[in-house]
Each structure stands twice: as C-alpha cells, then as structure tokens.
C-alpha cells in the first residue's frame, strides 16, 4: 500500500494510481484492479457487471445506489471501491435466496411498490436492513428510516405498505 510521490502522471507511474481490491460480492470472492478514483458504485456496475445497483444523483442524495457492506446499508456512490477491500458487499442481485425471491421482493410486486423501478433496488436493499435494524414498527418509523431512498414516481405509499407487510410477517 506504500506509494511514493510523483509529480506527473507518467505512464510508468500508472500503477500508483490503481489499487487492488480483494472483496466478497454476494458471497463470491472478487478481485478488482481499479483506478483509485473508482467508486464502489462504478466497480459494481462497470467492473463486476452488476448493474442492479443504480446511479441516481451520484452525490449521496437519493439512495438509488444503496448496497450492504458487512451487512449495513451504505451509499455506494460516496464510497471508494478501495474501501471495501476485505469487506463483504451485497447488492440487489444477492438479495434473493436459493429458494426464490426475498419476501420484500414479493411484497413489492404484490403491492405495486414501483412505477419505473429505477429506485427499487435501492429501496429493497435499504428495506432489508430496516427490518434487521428493527425499525419497521410503525408506518411513521418506516417512513423516517426509509427517508434516504427517494422515489421520483412517488410510489411511497405502496413501498411503505410492502415493507409493513413483511415486517408484520403477514406473508
């Protein structure tokens, strides 16, 4: 990890501006050699080819890029790929189990909890953590602790209904 100072970005210095990332994505080991500037969002979409994670605002404001790192929800657009070295990443592609869709995915379909669907991967990943965090006790709590996920289509009522269903175990 030690690097030495260079003044120009000469081709020979190229290696200093790349970083090797050893991580686990959706349970499978992954190794990326990326430009130091690469965000986790870019690495997932462009290097790993996992395009389920969406780029909305690219500045921390919308939640479309939400993934789990070591089981916690974070915004992949503001995290460098280098920062997940040695960590576990889960994307929407890894949400479903071997036996079929995650209960949240089924509830979202049943409740029509989307229109265009662009925010949906982020909503699902955020909601999966919300349930684990034990913060889906009331509609008000669901709204508050899901407030980091915006939906331009305004499917909020149905999103809340879908999460409430799964939280209450009515599935």
């Amino acid at each position, binding site marked *: 990890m030690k690097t030495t100072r260079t003044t120009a970005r000469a081709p020979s210095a190229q290696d200093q501006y790349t970083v090797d990332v050893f991580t686990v994505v959706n349970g499978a080991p992954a190794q990326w050699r990326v430009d*130091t500037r690469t965000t986790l969002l870019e690495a997932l979409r462009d290097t790993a080819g996992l395009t389920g994670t969406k780029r909305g605002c690219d*500045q921390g404001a919308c939640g479309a890029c939400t993934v789990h790192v070591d089981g916690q929800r974070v915004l992949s657009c503001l995290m460098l790929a*280098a920062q997940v070295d040695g960590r576990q990443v889960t994307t929407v592609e890894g949400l479903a189990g071997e036996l079929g869709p995650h209960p949240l995915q089924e509830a979202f379909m049943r409740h029509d909890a989307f229109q265009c669907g662009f925010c949906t991967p982020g909503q699902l990943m955020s909601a999966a953590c919300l349930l684990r965090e034990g913060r889906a006790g009331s509609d008000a709590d669901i709204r508050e602790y899901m407030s980091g996920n915006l939906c331009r289509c305004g499917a909020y009522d149905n999103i809340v209904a879908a999460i409430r269903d799964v939280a209450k175990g009515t599935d």
Partner: protein
Amino acid sequence: MRAFLYDRPTAVGEAVAAVAADPQAAFLAGGTTQVDLMKDGVWTPDRLVDITRLPLRGILVESQQLKVGALTTMEQLAAEPVVEQRLTFVREALLLGASVQLRNMATIGGNLLQRTRCRYFRDPTVSACNRRSPDSGCAAVDNVARMHAVLGVDERCIALHASDVAVPLIAVEASVLVDGPSGQRRIPLTEFWVRADEGPSIENVLGHGDLITEIDIPLLPQGWRSGYLKVRDRASYEFALTSAAVALQMDGDMIGDIRIALGGVGSVPWRAREAEEMLRGTHVDPVRFEQAGRAVMASAFTVPGTAFKVDLAVRTLSRQLLTMTEASR
C-alpha cells in the same frame, strides 16, 4: 475527479506522517463530505490517506464522560444506551441528521469537519468564494441564499456550519483529542471552529496533518433533561434551517441550570450563552424565552434570503424551551 494516490495505514502515527509529508494530501474517513467534494472538483488532493482501518472505533463509557473513537459512526453513537439516557439531545441530533445509509458511513470526527453546504462553495464554476479562494468575493451575499448563516458572519462569507450533532456537543462542552506532527493535544469544541467573520478561509484550528483521534463528551448530570429540535424544509433527510439544543435541570418550577446551543444559524455551531444567563434561576416564562432568543439573534447579519432565520431561530428556541420545561408547568 482528479487522480490521487491512495494509502491505507493501520497506525495513527503513519497516517499523520503521510498527510504531514504531503501538502496536497487529505484524510479520508466515511467519505460523505470528502468524496462528494472531490467529485465536484471543489477539492483536489493528490493523495488520500484512508483512516478507516485505524483503531479509532468504539465508545468507552466512564462515570462522567464518554470517550468516543473518532471513527465511530453516527449510527453507532446513537445506538449507545448511555447516550440515550444521559445525552438525549446528542442522540436526537444524530438521528435527525442525513439518512441511515449516510449515518452508517459518516464518522463523528468527519461530522465535526464537514464542509459548508453553500452551493457556491460547492460549484467550482463560481469564481467568487472567499472560503475557497481568498479575496475572490462572496457569490452568496449577492445571490440566492437560504441554507446560510446569520451569526458569526459578515459580507465576506455567510457559510453555515451544517452539523447537527455539533450543536449539542458544544452545549455540553465536548472536546477533541488531536494527534499531529507536533504531538498530541486536547481542544475544547468551544475553541475548535473559527467564525467566518474572523477569516472566511479558515474553518478550524487544526493544522495540516492533525488527526482527531477521540471525542470526549461529558455526560449531563443525573436529573437533567435534554432535547434537540430541528426545523427544516422537508420532514426528514434534510439539513436544518434552524435548530435548538437545550439541556436543563429544573429546580421546582424554576430553571436551575441550563445549556443552549443553536444550529442552522452560525458559521460555527452556536453556543447561546446570553440566553443561558438570562434564563438560569428564572421561572418558566414564554415571554422571557422569546427575549432570550432575541438577545442571541441581536447581532445577526442577514441578506434577503436569510432574514427569515432570525424569527425562526427565536421561535425554534422558544418552542424547545417550552417543551423541555413542560413537565413542571
């Protein structure tokens, strides 16, 4: 984003040395300010020293204070039971800030060092910004301003310090431990930030290479109650227009002792000592609450877009004082 070298040291001394040795280097913690500003091209360090693997995470509970590792996240601090019981307003300020995703990334050290949300500061195509480039002017004073400060500012810069948690932290007089090129020192938060009207381009007293390792937060004495009220343009996931952190101890129907700080109004988190003095040892009296608020806001410097903040701050404080004294009325 401009190209940068990336280091990820595992010892505090290495991290300090790496930044100290390179005038263009910066620390990277949760990245929610740092990466954001680098993407916008506002901040172009040639080296990032990632401090997230340093052993500076976790909370030590002592009888009178909490020792909080600088890399403890906002969510982790909010989840600490002692914070809920003895520093209620710290917990409330944390949970009313940003979103869960951001709070899982954002560290307490980084939160204190977040840069202003001034939209002109964050737009490198705007040339007039004394904070970014000294003596270039201030685009905000002559243009649309709203999320800006009215206290500790003048026509050279009206940048707001937008942290929520810093507001109760300055009320309880927390301090930071700093490890730097010239050794260790402790800085009380009351002396940590530099007001914009004292120099728009200097935000705090840290030098290049100074690393915050710990935040020490005194617990409120038993019998005190505290709360944080945040007023904003939307119900959640939004910065404060104004906010009030109040901690007090009632003595019968009198206010025994009290601590007050305001957010959303200052170029630094704003301790409201005039108001504390006016209210200490007095009866619960809404008229006096408003007078105390007016006294704090008397020195406000406003532009058309921020003039509303004077009344709003007075009302925010009055309402929070009413809430906090309610049980005894």
